[in-house]
């Protein structure tokens, strides 16, 4: 298979403050297209904050100040002409706990395309089926599309949230600990799904589960106290990290 080494995001000298507290310090990194990039580090290290920079979710938090640049396909996402709604359509997010809307499976997936103006019934049917298939959920829900999504298992709900995201055809999928509320089998299903999805999407995943980062990602970044300590190919980072702090964290001898 051809290896794609194009950038999707280029982050340069990014600093982020919550009022007076600096949460990210001089972060510079490149996130590659059609790869899975994992962000690891202890609680409070800034990895989720960093993830939320990538689709400007931090804009919603009062007192946040950001400097530095974040380029998405060479365009500064903080530029004056950027439409944040469009940015979040291109860069979607899946959260820790599955959060399906209290409506049918079908309506959950059709929600995004509908608010973006899609009204055609047969088009919507196609989008719903394609998205559910891409999220490896179609076979399990095709006979209950019009029943409430809240009746699905946790793992199914999380895949539904992924299908809901895929329905608006994003370019990047951000995932904030997407399996931490799931059982091990559902977790493995999501991980398999991620490997399929990376053929079409750029994926950035925050995870507390180091084995998960090791299993699924191509590159891993280790964050500590707002610094990005080390960033490199996953295989190298987990077998011979360069920084002693990375070594201490991934071998569980931290603090």
């Amino acid at each position: 298979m051809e290896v794609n080494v194009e950038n999707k995001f280029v982050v340069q000298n990014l600093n982020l403050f919550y009022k007076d507290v600096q949460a990210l310090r001089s972060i510079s990194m490149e996130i590659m297209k059609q790869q899975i990039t994992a962000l690891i580090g202890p609680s409070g290290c800034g990895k989720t904050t960093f993830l939320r920079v990538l689709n400007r979710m931090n804009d919603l938090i009062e007192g946040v100040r950001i400097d530095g640049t974040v380029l998405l396909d060479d365009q500064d996402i903080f530029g004056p002409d950027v439409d944040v709604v469009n940015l979040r359509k291109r860069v979607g997010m899946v959260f820790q706990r599955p959060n399906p809307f209290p409506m049918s499976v079908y309506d959950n997936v059709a929600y995004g395309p509908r608010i973006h103006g899609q009204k055609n019934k047969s088009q919507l049917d196609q989008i719903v089926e394609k998205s559910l298939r891409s999220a490896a959920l179609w076979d399990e829900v095709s006979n209950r599309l019009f029943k409430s999504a809240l009746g699905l298992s946790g793992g199914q709900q999380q895949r539904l949230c992924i299908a809901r995201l895929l329905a608006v055809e994003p370019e990047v999928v951000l995932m904030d600990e997407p399996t931490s509320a799931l059982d091990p089998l559902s977790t493995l299903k999501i991980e398999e799904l991620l490997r399929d999805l990376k053929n079409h999407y750029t994926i950035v995943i925050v995870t507390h589960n180091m084995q998960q980062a090791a299993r699924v990602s191509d590159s891993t970044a280790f964050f500590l106290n707002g610094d990005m300590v080390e960033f490199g190919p996953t295989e190298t980072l987990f077998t011979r990290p360069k920084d002693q702090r990375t070594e201490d964290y991934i071998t569980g001898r931290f603090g």
Partner: protein
Amino acid sequence: MTSRSTFDRELNDLKQDILRMASLVERSLFLALDSLLSGDPVAAREVITGDDAIDNLQDDIENQCIKLIATQQPMARDLRVIITGIKIMINLERMGDHAVDIARSAMCVCGQMPQKPLEKIPHMARLVQQMVKEGMDAYVHNDVEKARQMCMTDDEVDELYNLTFQDLISYMEEHPQSIGCVVYLLMVARYLERIADRATNIAEDVIYLVTGERQCLN
């Protein structure tokens, strides 16, 4: 107490078992060569019966490594400690087998070996024993420099092996009545050369353990 005290203790136990295995192998090698050079079959028999203890220890170490990988999900240096543990254990086990091979050869030639063709063997044996010892010293102290230096001796052993080989062939041509005995010495020289290669493998494992880099020193 660190957050992984139990795991650290288990990794240390693993290292102690590998060192115990190494000391058994070093002793077997010493006894096998002593038996060959002195013509005393008692030591050779001890090597042959003692090999079970080495094999049992090998099984123990292998089981420990499997358990640690399955239960602790080792990463980074921890992973390298376990992987090099397995590799060193395999090299030691093969060395132990070669010591048995030398002991069997010693028993076959016991009391019939002329002194002349034996001349180069003690020097070669000393070098090989020194390599095994230094390889394990490098492992104990995580000493990359020592591991590298030790491997230089391997060239000397190879050269000595080639010379010994030529000498023994000449000797057999001149003394065809000794061929039945001297051919065992050819094999012993070969076993020693193989043990030196195994020791070099251990040095490479030590370098990987410490630095994470693979180097071919053979």
